[in-house]
C-alpha cells in the first residue's frame, strides 16, 4: 500500500510539471498587466514611469525563458512565488483560502452524497415508480441549470424571503448552507443518476440472484450484497466530481463572496496577479490529483480484485 501511494505521488510530478508549463506559457502572453489592472477603476492615470518600474520590479521584463527557468526552480523548492498584488508569498495567500475551499467542497460533496446516493438507490430499487421518475427528472434538471442562477434563486428564497440563512459571507455553518447547496446540486444529480444506474447493474447481477436464492430478505440483499458493489461503481464519479468541485466552485464562491481558492483565482486573473493565478491553479490541480489517488486507494481497499494486481 505504501509503495502504491509512493508510486502515485511520483507519477504526479510530471503531470504537475506539465500543468505548470502550460499555465506559465498561457499567462505569459496574457494582455494587460498588474500595473494596468491597478488603474482599472479609472481613479487615476498610472504614471508611465511608475508602471515601467513596477514591471521591472516584478521581473516581467526578463525574457520568457529566463522567467520560466526561475519559476521552475522556485517550484522545485516548493516556492509558489510572490504575489504581485500583496507582495506576500503565494503559498500564504493560497493557504489562507484553502480551508474555506475545502470546507465548501466537503459540504457540497457531503450534501450531494447524502442525498444523491440514497436517492439513486431508492429510485433503482423501484424502477419506473413515481419516485424514480421524479428523482431522475429532478436530476436531469439539476444538471441543466446555470449554477449562478440557481445560487441567486437560493439566495433570494432562503435569505431574503424566508430569512432562514445568511445570504453571503464566511463564518459558521449557517453561512455554508446556501453555497454548498448551490455547488452540490450538480454532483448530487450526477451521483443520483450514477448510483441508480450502478444499482440497476448490480441488482441484476448473478450474485444478487444467488443472494436471493439463499433466502435473504430484500433489505439484506441490498445492504449485504448490492450496496458495496454498487458504491464501487459510484466511487469513480465521487472522485471525479470531488476533484472537479473546487474548480467549479469559482462561480459559487464569487456569487456568495466565499473566500475560497476559486475566488482568489478569478480575482487574480482580473488583477493580473500571475503568480497567484499560477499558484492557485497548481494547488487545485494537486487537490484533484490527490483526490484521485485517494479514490484509487479506496478501490484497493474495497475491491480485493485490484489488490492482487497491485501486489
Amino acid at each position, binding site marked *: 500500500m505504501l509503495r502504491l501511494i509512493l508510486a502515485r505521488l511520483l507519477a504526479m510530478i510530471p503531470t504537475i510539471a506539465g500543468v505548470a508549463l502550460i499555465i506559465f506559457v498561457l499567462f505569459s502572453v496574457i494582455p494587460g498587466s498588474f500595473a494596468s489592472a491597478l488603474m482599472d477603476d479609472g481613479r487615476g492615470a498610472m504614471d508611465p514611469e511608475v508602471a515601467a518600474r513596477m514591471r521591472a520590479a516584478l521581473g516581467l521584463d526578463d525574457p520568457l525563458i529566463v522567467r520560466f527557468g526561475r519559476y521552475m526552480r522556485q517550484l522545485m523548492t516548493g516556492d509558489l512565488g510572490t504575489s504581485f498584488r500583496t507582495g506576500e508569498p503565494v503559498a500564504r495567500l493560497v493557504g489562507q483560502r484553502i480551508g474555506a475551499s475545502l470546507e465548501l467542497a466537503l459540504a457540497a460533496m457531503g450534501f450531494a452524497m447524502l442525498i444523491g446516493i440514497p436517492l439513486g438507490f431508492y429510485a433503482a430499487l423501484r424502477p419506473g415508480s413515481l419516485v424514480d421518475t421524479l428523482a431522475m427528472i429532478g436530476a436531469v434538471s439539476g444538471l441543466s441549470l446555470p449554477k449562478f442562477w440557481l445560487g441567486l434563486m437560493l439566495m433570494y428564497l432562503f435569505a431574503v424571503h424566508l430569512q432562514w440563512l445568511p445570504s453571503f459571507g464566511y463564518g459558521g455553518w449557517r453561512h455554508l448552507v446556501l453555497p454548498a447547496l448551490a455547488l452540490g446540486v450538480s454532483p448530487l444529480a450526477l451521483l443520483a443518476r450514477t448510483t441508480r444506474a450502478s444499482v440497476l447493474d448490480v441488482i441484476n447481477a448473478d*450474485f444478487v440472484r*444467488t443472494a*436471493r*436464492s*439463499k*433466502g435473504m430478505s430484500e433489505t439484506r440483499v441490498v445492504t449485504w450484497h448490492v450496496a*458495496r458493489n454498487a458504491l464501487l461503481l459510484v466511487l469513480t464519479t465521487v472522485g471525479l466530481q470531488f476533484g472537479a468541485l473546487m474548480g467549479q466552485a469559482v462561480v459559487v464562491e464569487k456569487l456568495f463572496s466565499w473566500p475560497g481558492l476559486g475566488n482568489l483565482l478569478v480575482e487574480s486573473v482580473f488583477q493580473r496577479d500571475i503568480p497567484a493565478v499560477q499558484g492557485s491553479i497548481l494547488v487545485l490541480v494537486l487537490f484533484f490529483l490527490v483526490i484521485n489517488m485517494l479514490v484509487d486507494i479506496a478501490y484497493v481497499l474495497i*475491491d*480485493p480484485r485490484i489488490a*492482487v494486481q497491485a501486489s
Partner: protein
Amino acid sequence: MTAAVLEIAGLDIVVDGGRGPTPLVEDVGFSIPAGAAFGLVGESGCGKSITALAVMGLLRTPLRRTRGRIALAGRDIASADAAELRRLRGREVAMIFQEPMTALNPLQTVGRQIAEMFVLHEGARWRDAEDRAVEALRSVRVAAPERRVRDYPHQLSGGMRQRVMIAIALACKPKLLVADEPTTALDVTVQAEIVELMSDLCAARGTAILMISHDLGLVARMCREIAVMYAGRIVEQAAAADLLSHPRHPYTHGLIGALPRLGARAVRGRARLAEITGVVPAPTDRLAGCRFHPRCGRATGHCHTDAPPSKARQEGGIVRCHHDG
C-alpha cells in the same frame, strides 16, 4: 414415494412487455419425489431456467406467473408470504447457477458467503458461522478449507467456485437442490467431478435434485426421470432409461442424435443441434399448432394448426405429439 418434494402443475409464466404479456412457459407440470433426481432438458430459451426461478420464487418483473401451482414439500409457494418464502429458500430448496464466475459476490470472502447461510437460517453468530463454513467447504472436498474461506471468488478456479456454490446450496440441508446448468461453464474434466460431487452429497443427505441442462447425456447419467422442454412446453417426460431408449417426440429424437460421441467436446448452450435444422422460435413469434413443426420432419397439416395434447406414453410418462408412436 408419497410426499413429493416439488410439485408443479399447469404452470404458465409470461413476460410483460410493450405489447402485452408474452408467454414463456405454458402448462408445465411435474413432480419430484423426496431424494430423487429429476432432469429438465432443452435448448436455450425453452423456458427451463425460468421454470427453475419460479420454483425458487425468484421471478421478478417483468416475469410473472399467471397460472399454475408450485408446491414445495406440500406448501404452495403462491400462498406463502415473503417471509415464509425466504425461509423456504435456502432451507427447503437451494439453487446452483450456471456461471460460477459471476454467481458469487466478488467483494466478499467465500467463507462469509457460506457463513451467511447459517446466520440467515439458523440464527448462528458470525464467528460460529464462519467456523462452520470451513466444515462446509471441507464437505465439498476443497483442500485446505481453513485457508480457502478467506479467499475471494476471483482467487478460485471455476470448479472451485462451483464447489463453493454447492457448499452454500447444501449448507442448510435443503430438501431440494435446483441446479441450473451447473457444469456448462466448466471444463469437461471438472464437469464430471462436480456432477459426481452433487450426486454423492445429495444422495447422502436425501436431497432431491432438479437438474436443468441442455445436455441430455449429463442429465441421463444423473437423473431417474427426465422432462424435455421445447419452446415453453414439456414435450416429453419419462423415466431416463425409457426416454433414451424409446424417445417418442421427434425433438427428443433429435436431442439423442445430437449427443456427443465419446471424447467429443460438449457444446455450449446455443450451439445448434446437428440433427435438427433451424432454431428455437423466439417467444414473441410463437406459432400456432405444434411449436416444433417448422423443424420437424414429420410435420403434417394439423401440426400447423392444433397444439398437440399431452398423451400418456406406452412405457409410462407423457408426450405431446400428434404423431406419437
